[in-house]
């Protein structure tokens, strides 16, 4: 009983994102439109932690929470790459995770996208040249979009997902003011 009265008192906390991200709000509306046309407005995400410090994971957890609520855009996490459309990879790829990451990518049915989250995923960050690190994510599997930040904010991650959907081969790329992932790839 107490639980439900609290729910009622709290009300809806999902908000349009903070004002300083008004480009992100714009983006989110764009995600809605674009993911609908590309993947039928339902994108299943499989998160792969390829060796991250879990900082990015904490931010990713925020995606599903009430504030960012990615479910309203038809994005949701799934338990198996077989069910997924998009791989969300974090961290520098450790030696032990290189093969599993590759296998995950292979297990995902086409069409599929890869979004690498965090600085480590692109540059290996402070773990660079560690004996345990095999390389950045794109050394192992083809990456569509990198999301920078250590860790990136949930809104940034959403932006990355949008760019990825945008990079869908069958669609002409609309001119948006975001950096092209292909160009930033090492």
């Amino acid at each position, binding site marked *: 009983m107490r639980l439900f009265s609290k729910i009622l008192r709290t009300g809806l906390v999902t908000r349009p994102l903070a004002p300083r991200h008004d480009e992100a709000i714009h983006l989110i509306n764009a995600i809605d439109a674009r993911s609908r046309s590309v993947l039928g407005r339902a994108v299943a995400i499989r998160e792969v932690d390829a060796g991250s410090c879990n900082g990015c994971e904490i931010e990713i957890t925020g995606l599903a929470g009430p504030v960012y609520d990615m479910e309203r855009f038809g994005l949701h996490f799934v338990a*198996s790459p*077989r069910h997924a459309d998009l791989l969300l990879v974090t961290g520098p790829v450790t030696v032990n*995770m290189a093969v*599993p*990451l590759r*296998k*995950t990518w*292979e*297990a995902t049915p*086409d069409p599929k996208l890869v979004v690498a989250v965090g600085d480590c995923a692109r540059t290996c960050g402070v773990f660079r040249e560690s004996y345990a690190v095999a390389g950045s994510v794109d050394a192992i599997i083809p990456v569509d979009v990198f999301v920078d930040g250590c860790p990136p904010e949930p809104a940034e991650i959403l932006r990355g997902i949008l760019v990825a959907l945008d990079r869908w081969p069958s669609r002409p790329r609309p001119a948006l003011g975001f950096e092209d992932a292909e160009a930033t790839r090492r």
Partner: protein
Amino acid sequence: MNAGGAEIWLRILLVAFPIGAVAALVVRGALGRAIVAAAAAVGSAAGFALAAMVLGWGEPVRGSFAFPLAPLVFRLDPLGAFFLVVTAIVGFAASLYSFGYGAGSPWRVLRTTGVNLNLLLLGLSLQVMADSPLTFLLVWELMSLAAYFLVLAEPDEPGAVNAATWYFGVTHAGFAALFAMFFLWSGGALTASFVELRAVPLDGALRDAVFLLALVGFGTKAGIIPLHIWLPRAHPVAPSHASALMSGVVLKMGVYGLVRVTFDLLGSGPAWWGMLVLALGTVSALLGVLYALMQHDLKRLLAYHSIENIGIIFMGLGAALLFRTYDLPLLSALALAAALYHTLNHACFKALLFLGAGAVVRATHTRNIEELGGLIRRMPRTAFAFLIGSAAISTLPPLNGFASEWLLFQSLLGGARIPAQSVAVLMPVGVGLLALSSGLAAACFVKAFGITFLAIPRSPHAEAAEEAPRSMQAGMFLLVAACVGLGLGPAFVVPLLGRLIARLPGLEPAIGLHAANGALTGLPDGLGQMSPPAVALGLVAVAVVVAVVLRALAPPFRLRRGATWGCGRLLQTPRMQYTATSFAEPLRRVFAQLYRPTEDLTVEVHPDSEYFVRAIRYESRVHPWVERLLYQPLLAMVRGAGRRVRQMQAGSVHLYLAYMCAALVVLLFVARWLP
């Protein structure tokens, strides 16, 4: 014999089986196998024809033979003919199967199997025709001995001798009970025909004694708990087509005997008869399937399932007895029809499963399902047949297991009409436990089929498996057809059963068990209606519509083969698959109080540090404690008695003469004092 057509079939039956038995002794090689199989098949076919004629006429056929000591009297009435159909279907399939199955077996095994297969079929066919206690008991003994030698056919098989000894002991205990029953009943006149027996007036206590002896005698043959001890031991070690016959038909002779005695000859009894049979049936159904779940020996698993299904049949019989006591003849007929129908269905699918298991064992040389796997690729036809059998025994519509359990449910649901409320209250419990056992059976067969046939082979044996020869496939697919046919055709079978049940005293209204338009509509006193052909048709129609719609509307379908998803694990080996033990683990935990498993865990650690584990050994066993509880004291008693008797064996001739003298005196006294 009073009808020309029937006589011909009977003669063929009586000639074919002995020819097969003799041929097995004389002719070696493929020709020998062919003759044995052909003789058994011809005999079974003749049996089927004979039974069909009797069922068609609805009138019994009579016959008798001069026999050195006493006349043997035979009479095949529709009830017997129904069981003859059971024998004939399974016998025919098993004979076909035996031709391919025997290839490669040593001559010694082939000889024993061939002789006794034919003798067993002869015994089974005659059993249902026996019309006097003497004939009945003699044929019973023939059947039991043939089955005993079949259990012993491969004596090198581990446990075979032990199993055969158990079988021999228990079946003769049952025989003793039957002998005592007929002796008490007929007052020693064992040659009296069953018709005369029916007229013998019995007072209350004697009737109860006769009933109890019949229950013990036929119960041991049928293998109901707690008289089942021999069954899970004997069935796995026999050659598979013999197991099929034993599980499919020999057990059913216990059912036949009980139906014959309690429904046909003895007449209505007090309520506790039905309660007792119903309770035994429920316990057998539940414990049978629970112990089956814990088995990893494919054939032993099937054997425990036979206990379960016999339990279900006994539930039907018990309910029928109960309804008859409370003067609800239509419900009683419905329950009896369900029991008889399930008898036929169980014979078909259990024989099918045993034949499939035999094909697996023959191809892989192991009965342990933990060593199997992936056979669906190597033995696709066997796998398909086994799948149908599994679905049928798991009571999935529209196969035959469902048809008969549906009838049984219908009759038990009618239990609310029993006027005695303290009895009526128990009916929902029975319904619940019946449903539980069918659900557990489905779980068990997901395990049996899934671990045996699906995924990756777990051993080199399974990797090297090859498809069974054509004759074996023919035997299996015949039974597949029977399972499907019987599942779709209750509207044909039920009126037939109604007609034969209506001949039993007190159940005349059963003639009203009818069906309309292929559906079990308006079963008198039944609560519901359904039509298996319509269900099957509905499924097919929906499947067609789905296929058409998908083809028309769905985008083109692309398929890619990839490695199994194992969370990105580097290596996927057969050892990482779920095993049968782990599959059954949740249920073992749920029913832990019943199983009382013994567990043994040893952890071997590195000598330098206890944190580095070198090996973990976990062992868990489930012993049917019911068996231990009941039979260990009995065995101890028998051994003790044996020891005491041995003391009498001093080896002195004089002592033996003295014993004889004493025995004579005692006998004379007894003769003097008896009227």
